[in-house]
């Protein structure tokens, strides 16, 4: 999850989510960075409205939980 946190930190700080920025952050946190995961994250976030996506609940289980 640290890669996602790094992206969210950048987002919250108003910085661009680039491979370099994420890498920098992870290194600053002492994480041994896996380039492929950084790349994958940045690719997955391309064109994504982060503000919207973080508020949109992810777990679909709740069909059953639909409030009456």
């Amino acid at each position, binding site marked *: *999850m640290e*890669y*996602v*946190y790094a992206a969210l930190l950048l987002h919250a700080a108003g910085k661009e989510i680039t491979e370099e920025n994420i890498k920098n952050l992870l290194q600053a946190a002492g994480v041994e960075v896996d380039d492929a995961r950084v790349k994958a994250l940045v690719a997955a976030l391309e064109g994504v409205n982060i503000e919207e996506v973080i508020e949109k609940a*992810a*777990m*679909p289980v709740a069909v059953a939980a639909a409030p009456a």
Partner: protein
Amino acid sequence: MAHVAEWKKKEVEELAELIKSYPVVALVDVADVPAYPLSKMRESLRGKAIFRVSRNTLIEIALRKAAQELGNPEIEKLVDYIQGGAGILVTEMNPFKLYKFLEESKKPAPAKPGVPAPRDIVVPAGPTPLSPGPLVGEMQALGIPARIEKGKVSIQKDTVVLKTGEIITPQLANILNQLGIEPLEVGLKLLAAYEDGIVYTPEVLAIDEEQYISMLQQAYMHAFNLSVNVAYPTKQTIEAIIQKAFLGAKNVAVEAGYVTKETAGDILGKAFRIALLIAQELPEELLDEKTKE
């Protein structure tokens, strides 16, 4: 020039030296703290902070002296917060931690007449070690349901004897003391703390831990949602991602009425539920025996 006692000079010297050698300098009020709890508190502070009680005027002079010698006029701002019976506390703990520590190390103290209750005071139900005597009558007079059982005074049920802010009367103080109930709190009251050019007041330092916890949870949910919604897998979210994809697929199949091994139950079930709900809207005589069940 007025004569200044040698001990005072020395005291100021020492205080200034302390102030200069620690990053965090706090003023505390010890006016209401009796000697015994105070020594207890000194013990709990050992290794974490150095604590000196002195005269307010000497603390003031020491602060000004330290500020001047450090070339840091900000420390002098603490002078404005000296109040009551001041003490000085120097430490490496950050001011927030220091505040939390002081709050947590407050000790219960016996009731004192004339002091407001810091919170509701409750006399709990149950037996007491007290022998029968005039106290029982006094308790009953104050609405405490006391009875004699097996030769001892026993309280019949939990009783609130004083609400927050109400003043403790001498009679009540006596009863609480006899019962061994300590409704008050004593501890070092932080007046202000200085670190790195900033003076922190208790209002600022009293952080709401619950709020931080809910922020942590919110941040985690955000990360979780992001990871699942953009299908960026992590150890914590891979299961949810699979489930989301599966349920999405299943829902589409169910909505489309496309029957597969995985969706047969849902689709037939849905059709059946619809039929049941429709049946509920129908007059009784229309239903066959099976539907009525």
